């Protein structure tokens, strides 16, 4: 009973606050992340005005941040359901391996692109089956598939890369990586499209309602007739699809597919999701938070380079961000209870 009395008190306090306070409370996560972004930007601006006042750094942000933002945005869904996917870096390369095989066999870029996306969805579906049908914790299942797909890529390609020159002659090249006005890259536009579409399905569609419910209280979700297994599997499929798409964009932008592609994306993608306020316990999270956090992570990367620090620092800082943001969520979660 004492928990009841404790819970009643903060309620009566909120009653005295106005609609502005209510807005701040509802969107506290989003407001927080925007403030963090502005503070970090001001810090970098003060520390290295030459770099951060030039156009070039923003052009660089817009072209390299989408490489992992395209995956971090859908990964937010998986984390909200209370699961995790660590296999996406390998799935990036696996999708491109499917492209490699089909393109080499048929000479068709379009067929190769379709094969790439299908391979990504297949990899995501496998994760979903391992987690929901067989019942392996997703952390373990997706570490397994991470190594499995990387191994498959290496065996199939024999460690050999593939030139992507042929793609330049198709519509996919301008469609995915063209620089609008020589400044805004198409992959940045695609990132915004991804964010809007995922936001819509998360917040304005039944699927999203079930994603939240599954992560919040899986028992209740089942009792209320939500197909928990299907919901989780679908989130894994979406991440697989997005990873394959991101792999294609990266390869096309660099005009070469490296079989080791994806190795550097694990930490910054995960850091973006957790820094964006998505709860590691599930049931809570925003696409907006992840989107802004991706650019914070991108800026930190650029800031480290601009500050003249070695690249070794990036892992240290990303790891630190993950631990701090998850700790903060946990502490704040306890206070709310």
């Amino acid at each position, binding site marked *: 009973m004492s928990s*009841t009395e404790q819970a009643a008190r*903060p309620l009566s306090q909120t*009653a005295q606050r106005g609609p502005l306070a209510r807005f701040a409370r509802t969107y506290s996560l989003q407001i927080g992340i925007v403030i963090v972004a502005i503070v970090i930007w001001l810090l970098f601006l003060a520390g290295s005005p030459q770099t951060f006042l030039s156009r070039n750094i923003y052009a660089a942000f817009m072209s390299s941040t989408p490489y992992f933002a395209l995956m971090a945005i859908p990964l937010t869904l998986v984390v909200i359901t209370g699961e995790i996917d660590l296999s996406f870096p390998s799935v990036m390369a696996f999708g491109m391996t499917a492209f490699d095989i089909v393109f080499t066999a048929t000479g068709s870029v379009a067929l190769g692109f379709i094969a790439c996306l299908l391979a990504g969805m297949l990899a995501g579906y496998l994760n979903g089956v391992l987690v929901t049908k067989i019942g392996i914790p997703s952390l373990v299942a997706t570490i397994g598939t991470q190594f499995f797909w990387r191994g498959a890529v290496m065996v199939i390609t024999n460690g050999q890369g593939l030139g992507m020159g042929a793609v330049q002659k198709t519509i996919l090249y301008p469609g995915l990586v063209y620089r609008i006005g020589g400044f805004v890259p198409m992959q940045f536009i695609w990132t915004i499209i991804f964010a809007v579409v995922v936001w819509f399905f998360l917040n304005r*569609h*039944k699927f999203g309602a079930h994603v939240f419910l599954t992560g919040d209280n899986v028992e209740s979700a089942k*009792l209320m*007739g939500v197909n928990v297994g299907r919901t989780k599997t679908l989130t894994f499929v979406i991440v697989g699809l997005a990873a394959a798409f991101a792999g294609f964009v990266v390869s096309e932008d660099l005009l070469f597919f490296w079989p080791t592609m994806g190795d550097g994306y694990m930490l910054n993608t995960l850091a973006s999701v957790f820094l964006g306020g998505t709860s590691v316990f599930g049931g809570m999270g925003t696409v907006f938070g992840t989107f802004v956090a991706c650019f914070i992570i991108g800026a930190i990367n650029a800031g480290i380079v601009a500050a003249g620090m070695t690249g070794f620092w990036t892992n240290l800082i990303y790891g630190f961000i993950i631990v701090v943001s998850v700790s903060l969520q946990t502490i704040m979660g306890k206070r709310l209870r």
Partner: protein
Amino acid sequence: MADVIQLRNVSKTFGEVRALHDVNFEVHSNEIVGLLGDNGAGKSTLTKIITGYHQPDPGGELYWKGEKIEHLSVQKARDLGIEVVYQERALADKQSLWRNIFLGREMSNKWGVLDIAGMKSETRKLMQTVMGFTSSAITADSMVRTFSGGERQGVAITRALYFEAELVLLDEPTMGLSLTETKKCLDFVNEIKNTGKSAIFIDHNIFHVYPVADRIVVLDRGTIAGQFMKNELTLQELIDRLYLVAQTGSLAEKGEAR
């Protein structure tokens, strides 16, 4: 009186454990059935079979208003009009009040796009009428984890009411509630009776079950130990018999009930 739901020879086995053993159970139209039993008697298993969460072992049969139901699922049960008020665990803590009211049954168009404005306005209406939430601190957007035990139970009960259930299952609804909250909950059960619907009231506490039930069924170790109409015996007699069940596994003296 016609039966709303009828279970025939229903058993349920989990691995080695037989949670229910050849249970025959029915709820008549406009009847409140009190289901009593100790921990492990099979109350939750029976509830979960009626709500489609568990399937009975082969051979067990379910009838809804006289019609046989094959493979009852949670969705199917809800469509028939079977609604459950679980203990507070049935709420999604980190979600808003309106999302909790429409849990698993969101208002949407044929593409699955949510009608958020519609759900919020329905929730506001329910808050004023059924739930009796007068505090200005609670809005349709409030997160339910800030609610008190009684408020949470109110949400769960309102959910059942809103969707106009034919048969409401209340799974230990008074657990952890204060005196006034308990009274409100029992008033709700009477309300079900008055509106012509049926209910199964599952509880440990005979002092809560006895006043509102028409018929009392006692489960013990997976079988129905006995049942009787409330007007057949007083509360004191009921208590005496429950002690008897605990000792012997049988409620009835020879020749009575079952």
